[in-house]
């Protein structure tokens, strides 16, 4: 029912008569907002909390949404503000400094709370799509993405290893991420 509606129509519907329409917005943008929060916070537990806070704040401020911007931009702005709030709180809490020093919780990959076999199948398919998308990248772009994401090398380390200028390395990573986004949007995630 809601799948064929645009984001702006869903928001208008949710404001006027059907709050459940906002659920479709959450389903469409939950993962992307989570990725944005993870990109800012680099910690999955904090990213999940920030994602939840983002949609709670968006739901409470549905009436303030003006149609002059896209829903995605509106949600992005709310998510960024939530992440900045989390970061400000983290600076004032002493226990967060201890966690940062040990770094033991930074690399823990927490399974989603709503884990189910259906979600597992969706995850498997999603991973297949990602593998295919990365494999279809040009060699020079795939190389820097693998070095950045799998080997966790810094831009300077990649520049020294490949004997390329630093600006060239950053440009290749940027281009690779852009092409990955286009490929991931084009490749359908088929869940059997």
């Amino acid at each position: 029912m809601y799948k064929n509606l645009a984001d702006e129509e869903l928001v208008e519907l949710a404001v006027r008569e059907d709050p459940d329409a906002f659920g479709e917005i959450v389903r469409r943008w939950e993962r992307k907002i989570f990725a944005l929060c993870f990109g800012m916070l680099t910690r999955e537990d904090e990213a999940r909390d920030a994602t939840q806070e983002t949609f709670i704040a968006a739901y409470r401020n549905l009436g303030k949404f003006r149609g002059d911007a896209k829903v995605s931009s509106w949600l992005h702005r709310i998510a960024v503000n939530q992440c900045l709030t989390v970061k400000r709180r983290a600076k004032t809490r002493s226990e967060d400094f201890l966690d940062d020093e040990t770094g033991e919780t930074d690399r823990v990959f927490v399974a989603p709370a709503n884990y189910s076999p259906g979600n597992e199948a969706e995850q498997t398919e999603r991973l297949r799509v990602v593998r295919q998308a990365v494999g279809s990248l040009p060699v020079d772009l795939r190389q820097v993405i693998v070095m950045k994401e799998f080997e966790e090398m810094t831009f300077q380390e990649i520049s020294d290893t490949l004997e390329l200028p630093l600006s060239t390395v950053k440009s290749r990573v940027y281009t690779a991420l852009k092409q990955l986004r286009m490929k991931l949007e084009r490749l359908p995630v088929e869940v059997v």
Partner: protein
Amino acid sequence: MAKETNNLCAHGGDMLAYLYDEMATAERDGFELHLADCAGCIDEFAELSQSRYPVYEWKQIEFEPLATPTIVLPAASVALFDKVRAAFSFSPGYSFAAAGFAAILFAVAVGYTVFLQESPDRDSIAVVENNGPVPQATPQRIAAPEPVAAVNKRDDIVVKPKPAVAERQIEPVKAFERKPKSAPSKETQPAKRDVSVPVMSRLDNEEDDSLRLADMFDDLDTSR
């Protein structure tokens, strides 16, 4: 990078550094303040994050659980030459230390050799001790020399015996005393006197020669 997105502001170049947390604290705080107010940078950052997270998820789910493979190298048969070469192969540090120690030993040996050569007393003493006692300048009693007559012929060399070196060394220096010489006679030829050279040390040879020459000239002068 700036060409692909037209909605990026001047801070667009910091996007990747912020995304991968490779910014200094002060720079990160400044970028976050800008990010909160720049819609273009927010959307751009969101797109990059949404592209990056699936790759990160793929790595976490499929790569991280994999155990690191243990590399097992096959046992290779080492040739005899390789074994010998391995026995004499030293680390560069050890080689430098050995070369330095050898250089120090060589310098000590050269220095000791030079030191030995520059010690003549020891050598002379050693030589003298081997060859015999050194003549000492001790006063000795010597018989008074016989007067010497002038010589007409130049072939005859008149040698005036000199007192012993020891006496001259110990006794105060005296002016040379010329003894009166008898006038030469035409009838008689001066007899050749035996040249008796007093025993002297080597050091006075030159001095003694000059005096002999002086005496000879004096004798010639007086004879004219």
